[in-house]
């Protein structure tokens, strides 16, 4: 995947945010330091940005509406885009999603700020669903098992959506 979009996102600083209300819960499932990788069963997401991306994908698969309101009110920034934490292909995917969600008539469809804002709102919409799944698994399963299981069920939901041919 080209670095066209990652260059675009790095060029201007935009904050990536997740809902403030869920900060503690999110921290439980994200590795904080290198040694947490030993405990991957309980902290299945290597970084916050990975959790953030998974939440966006969850919201899209479940057709959730982006969260309303002013992000600075409900969101907690965890990193800025110039720090390059987003992989090239994730940046590309966000650009594609923005086109699909905003449409070509929206003048902000090519603006990095608008795209990141949309991504943050989608992440905020998907976050409670992801956490609900991780926190309510059977006792004999780990958060990693739960996350993978959830991913599979989301794929099924996405496939189902594809078959019904819904549109933005």
């Amino acid at each position, binding site marked *: 995947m080209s670095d066209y979009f990652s260059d675009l996102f790095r060029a201007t600083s935009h904050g990536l945010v997740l809902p403030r209300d869920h900060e503690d819960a999110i921290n439980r499932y994200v590795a904080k330091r290198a040694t947490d990788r030993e405990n991957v069963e309980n902290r*299945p997401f290597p970084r916050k940005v990975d959790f953030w*991306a998974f939440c966006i994908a969850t919201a899209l698969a479940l057709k959730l509406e982006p969260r309303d309101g002013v992000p600075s009110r409900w969101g907690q920034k965890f990193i800025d885009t110039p720090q390059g934490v987003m992989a090239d292909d994730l940046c590309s995917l966000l650009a594609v999603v923005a086109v699909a969600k905003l449409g*070509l008539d929206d003048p902000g469809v090519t603006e990095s700020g608008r795209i990141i804002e949309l991504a943050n709102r989608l992440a905020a919409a998907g976050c409670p669903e992801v956490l609900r799944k991780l926190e309510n698994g059977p006792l004999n399963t780990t958060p*990693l098992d739960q996350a993978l299981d959830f991913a599979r069920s989301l794929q099924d939901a996405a496939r189902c959506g*594809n078959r019904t041919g819904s549109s933005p």
Partner: protein
Amino acid sequence: MLLVRRIEISNFVCFDDIEITPSTNPDRPLTVVRAENGSGKTTLLRAIRWGMYGERGLPGNPGSFSLHPASWQPDAEGIETRVSILFETDGSSRHHLEGRPTTTEYELRRSVTTVRKKPTSKGDPDFQRIHEDAKLLERERDGSWAPHEHGVRSVIDQLLPWSLRDFFVMDTDEAADFVGGSENKEIQRHEVIGKTSYAVRALLGLEVFDEAKKRVASLQQTFERDATKATRNAELAGKQAELDQVRGRLAEIETRLERNRHERADTDERLAQARGRLESLIGSLAAHDQLQERLVDNERHTRKASEERRSAAGELSGDLTRIDLLASLASREVRDAEALLQPLYDDGSIPVRHLDFVRRLLETGTCVCGQDLSYPGMHTDHVQQAIDSSAGQQDRADYLAEVLHAATAFGRHRDGEEWEQRTDDHTQTVGLLDQELDNLALTRKDIDAQLDDIDEDEVQNVRGRIEMLEKSLGKVAREIVSDQETCEQLDKDSNKLEADIRAARRQEAHARDLERYEETADVVVQVLERAYASIEAEQVRELDAEMNALFERMAANVVDDEAVEDNRHKATLRMIARVGVRPVEDSAGEYEIFALNSRGRSMPPTEINGASRRILALSFVLALCKVSRTQAPLVADSLLNFMSGSVLTNTLRVTAETARQPMLLLTPSDLESPNEIEVVERYAGATYTLTGQWQHVDQGGDVVNQTDYRQVALLCGCGPRQFCGVCERRGQAEDPKWSRHQPREAQQ
């Protein structure tokens, strides 16, 4: 030959006054003293030993051993204990079989008075013995008694030496020392060999040769020294001094060599015991090592599997963030974006390719309509304005083209099959590794359980002991090798010096005679050495064969039930195929008793059970007495302990037929079966029964009549199936196997 005619005991522990007249009938040589456990058998044996050997015949610390009656309260007046043994000898000794034809009667009288003493410390006895007196009286031709000219000790030491006491007054537990001690007793191998060797040398008369050889060798060296002096040659005298020095050193090293050989034998024995202990602790060394190896192997595999599992779980975690998952979840949006952008691409709006065409034409100064634009004018201005306003649209179109390109690429992941397949693979890998880890944990548990069964501390202790003993053995072995080398060198030096001295002395006429003496002595030494070797080989061979023959008779007709005791891992009589006496390797003049199994393997004493050890020791004692023609009484206590069935009968019969005057102290259980009764009836010339008055029914025992109210043991003349007013026990009067005996007056 020595025969005991009478034994009288007074005030000795539980005996008031008893008298025993052992059988002296050669056809019925056996004397049986029957007594329940705790009725005075061992005390009787101790009384005889004390009578023969005085204080050294008592067990433990003789000073605190009470000889006086148990019921006596120490007082100033005291009480006298007496033992008197009447015996006769025909004048023959162990070494001179023919001897003098006349028979001499002796009476050995030993007495001591016990008086009260104030104890000086806790545990100190409240009595002391004074006025110990021992007399040996010899019956004169006129029938009167006169003191023997050489005193008690010298005569007893000659007739019944203390070191050979087990051949005359045998506590069978002690006699088992010949075969490494009775059960639960550990005796060092060199002590066993020392005791056996002494008995063999003393009773076979081999000591005489040894002494003679040493004496002549000493004479030889004196002659040699004198011969050197006689030459009056200073240089030769110097060499002689040097030779004496070398010999002195040689003797010193040889002593050390012998000590080290003993130590090596003992260490070997201890090492074998420690290894045996270790094997019994852990099954085998190899099994323990294998478990440890399996444990290490298990830990290595567990580490590897854990690492692989961590890595596989990491891959799974990575799967959650892979773009093919995210793209498949956003597949609807990807498809929608494509649907929006593809028509724009198709009509050339994205990217804006016609603007490039127009721009290139303008750079060449030509308009799309063909007009020349190199000259300013309205048309030129209009075209330039149109181009400038399209710049923003071009950036947007380029952007959207990139989005379309990306959407097309993401479209490949629409189904998410690739992600699913990869994640399933990773999940399966994790599952397999979990299973492997579970299996490894189970194996580990199993190994731990097996290792837990082994007392690790004890194993380490024994291993430590083995290591220490091996080191010690190595040190001793090195010293032995070094000493042997030194001995060889000193021998060479000594031979060279002797040769030098002889060569020089040969020049001197006067020296020649002395030299001849020395040579003669040398020859005598050689003759003695050969004679010794020949007699030793012959006698020991005879002893070996006799011992095996006796052992076979005692072990004859043994069936499984009789041979197997509680201690099932110990070798039983049936497992012993051959026993005997053999010279100890590398140690001249030393012998040991051996037992071989059917495969010819030598069995250490610790592997042999209690009954077999007793029979082994007894066959040695009886064989040695027989081969050495030692005809003396054999007073034996606990002889038949641990035995039953045909072993018991055989042992009783063989002892009665082989010993010259056997006096056996037996329990009723030793005489239960008709077979033993038959042996006793056939061979016993005298029978006695000892009864402890403390075993009366009123005191919880089964003795019917209380003949004496004191704590004494009474002796009566009842045989093995007889009872009388003194010894009657409950149920005997009604039992047809028992008959009432009309006793002589009971002795107290």
